[in-house]
């Protein structure tokens, strides 16, 4: 078990910089998820921790020891790959033991570790099979087993569930959570799926275009996003963003009018500097934070295009008077029958024009 520290880590491919100085502190035994859209640098960051990519700038330390120039094998890490990376010409047992055999680990110890990993993952009865004869979930277990066998200080997962179907994904997610509880080892997990991040992580690192946007516990990110990107990325369905304009301010609050809706005004308490009156802002409202008319701070008239019924809840796909799309979550019983409907905003977030949170 170990801490992992990234200090101003930079990655360049030729002249092209893909990670612009990442600072991340991962505590011993913590489960940290790197999340972000494709191309945000999350996998590159993981591969740099693993030692599969050179570090162009900055420092990475594992367990307090600088590992920039240390070979992957000597970093005390084990990695689970998106494609599983099982050796197709070896049996499950050979797959699990390959690394240890190749590096001259004592035979008895190798056998013990393989046996333990197989028991933890309940794959003991599959040991003689080739990967081709395994189901997707079984392959995933073997891939994780191969990491466990190394008895690493840090587990690295590179989108391990993205090749599984929806049902198996949920099942394996629970499995990985259980594994973390059981082993207590530091785990770093990369995914583009915010649901996986929310459910698995002790802390989430949100990345975009090579920048760390925010680091925090799942509910902190949900309740208190630093910027429009994080607000939009965390939570499903996405937060709605509606253009607005500052119409009034004082030392502790600001009043915003939604574009095209003169009567819809939102008053937000503000501790930082408030923007000038007349400047443009963005109002973020989560689908679940709309209420019936009069239930919230202010009311809004929208026109409903489509209603999706999911059983317990429903989603209303609607437009504001200004033509902006919004998604509204409702109890199935409370779905309106008219196309024009008045909803209230119970909770909202303000962002400035650059997308930074105003609070």
């Amino acid at each position, binding site marked *: 078990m170990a801490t992992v520290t990234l200090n101003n880590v930079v990655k360049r491919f030729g002249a092209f910089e893909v990670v612009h100085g990442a600072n991340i502190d991962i505590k011993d035994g913590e489960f940290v998820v790197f999340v972000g859209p494709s191309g945000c640098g999350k996998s590159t960051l993981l591969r740099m921790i693993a*030692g*599969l990519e050179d570090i162009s700038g900055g420092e990475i330390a594992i367990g307090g020891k600088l590992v920039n120039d240390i070979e992957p*094998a000597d970093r005390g890490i*084990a*990695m689970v790959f998106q494609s599983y*990376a099982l*050796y*197709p010409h070896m049996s499950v047992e050979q797959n699990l033991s390959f*690394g240890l055999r190749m*590096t001259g680990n004592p035979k008895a110890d190798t056998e013990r570790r393989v046996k333990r990993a197989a028991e933890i993952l309940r794959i003991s009865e599959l040991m003689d099979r080739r990967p081709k004869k395994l189901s997707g979930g079984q392959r995933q277990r073997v891939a994780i087993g191969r990491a466990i066998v190394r008895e690493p200080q840090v587990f690295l997962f590179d989108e391990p569930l993205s090749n599984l179907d929806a049902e198996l994904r949920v099942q394996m997610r629970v499995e990985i959570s259980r594994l973390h509880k059981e082993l207590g080892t530091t785990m770093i997990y990369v995914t583009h799926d915010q649901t996986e991040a929310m459910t698995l992580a002790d802390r989430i690192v949100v990345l975009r275009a090579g920048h760390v946007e925010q680091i925090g516990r799942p509910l902190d990110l949900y309740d208190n996003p630093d910027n429009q990107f994080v607000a939009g990325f965390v939570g499903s369905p996405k937060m709605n963003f509606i253009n607005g304009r500052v119409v009034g301010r004082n030392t502790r609050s600001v009043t915003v009018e939604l574009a095209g809706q003169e009567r819809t005004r939102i008053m937000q308490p503000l501790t930082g500097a408030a923007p000038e009156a007349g400047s443009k802002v963005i109002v973020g409202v989560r689908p679940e934070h709309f209420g019936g008319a009069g239930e919230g701070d202010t009311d809004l008239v929208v026109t409903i295009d489509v209603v999706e019924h999911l059983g317990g809840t429903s989603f209303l796909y609607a437009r504001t008077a200004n033509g902006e799309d919004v998604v509204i979550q409702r109890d199935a019983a409370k779905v309106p029958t008219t196309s024009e409907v008045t909803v209230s905003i119970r909770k909202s977030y303000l962002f400035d024009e650059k997308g930074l949170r105003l609070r």
Partner: protein
Amino acid sequence: MSSLSSAKLRRSIALHLFLTPLALIWLFPLWMMVVFSTMPDNGIFSPGIELLPHGNFIDNFNNLQRDTDFVGAIGISVSVAVTYTVLSVLLTSMAGWALARYQFFGKGVVVGIIFGTITLPYAVVLIPQFIMVARDFQLANTWVALIVPPLFNSLGVLFMRQSFSMMPDDLFDAARVEGVKEWRIFLFVALPLARPMLAALAIILFLASWNNYLWPLLINSQPGSMTAPVALGTLIGLTKVSWGGIMAGAVMLTVPMLIVFVLLQRHFIAGIAAGAVK
């Protein structure tokens, strides 16, 4: 529907009517090789048309063995071709692996030069190679002379580079993370996965060595060091020679390869086709 299928039938018949004679013409020289090899010399040089095999193969073979030590030459050819194939497969796949899997200084230059040699006629290096091997190294009429200079082969390297670069990166990274040394990754992960490609490469290389004529003709011209094609070639054009014997030799050179071709057609074709598929 019935009119469509009758049109198809007509097309199919036309296709076979055209292709069958062409195929027979193409098979004809091979068939005649077998026929000649079983005919006595006076039968080959007689006015009648003979299109079916006779029973004289053994006699012809004995005549051949009288004219030149063909069995010995076959022995040399087999040993040389096997050694060459093993060495060349190893060399070629190692180079292909490096080019497919590593980022290194000068990579573009190395790849460029290898591509460049494809368009360069072998004739350009023939004379200096000969001078070097025969005069400078004094290696004429040895196995080394037959095996080592032809080891350079650009299409094979490009083929193996292509094969290795199509394998998923993760597989090798997984081994790296586990601390497996690069040469062990190559030996125990990459090579086993490349088995079908290695088979294709090996077949093509074996065939090239087995049939190689010009270089062995120049460098190993002493009786007793000749390969089978060279030994057979020395007989062609001699006035007092058994043509039935020459044909028996041709059959012995060709038929084993034809059998290999039939058995391993898939690998064979893959090996040849790979040259084109970039």
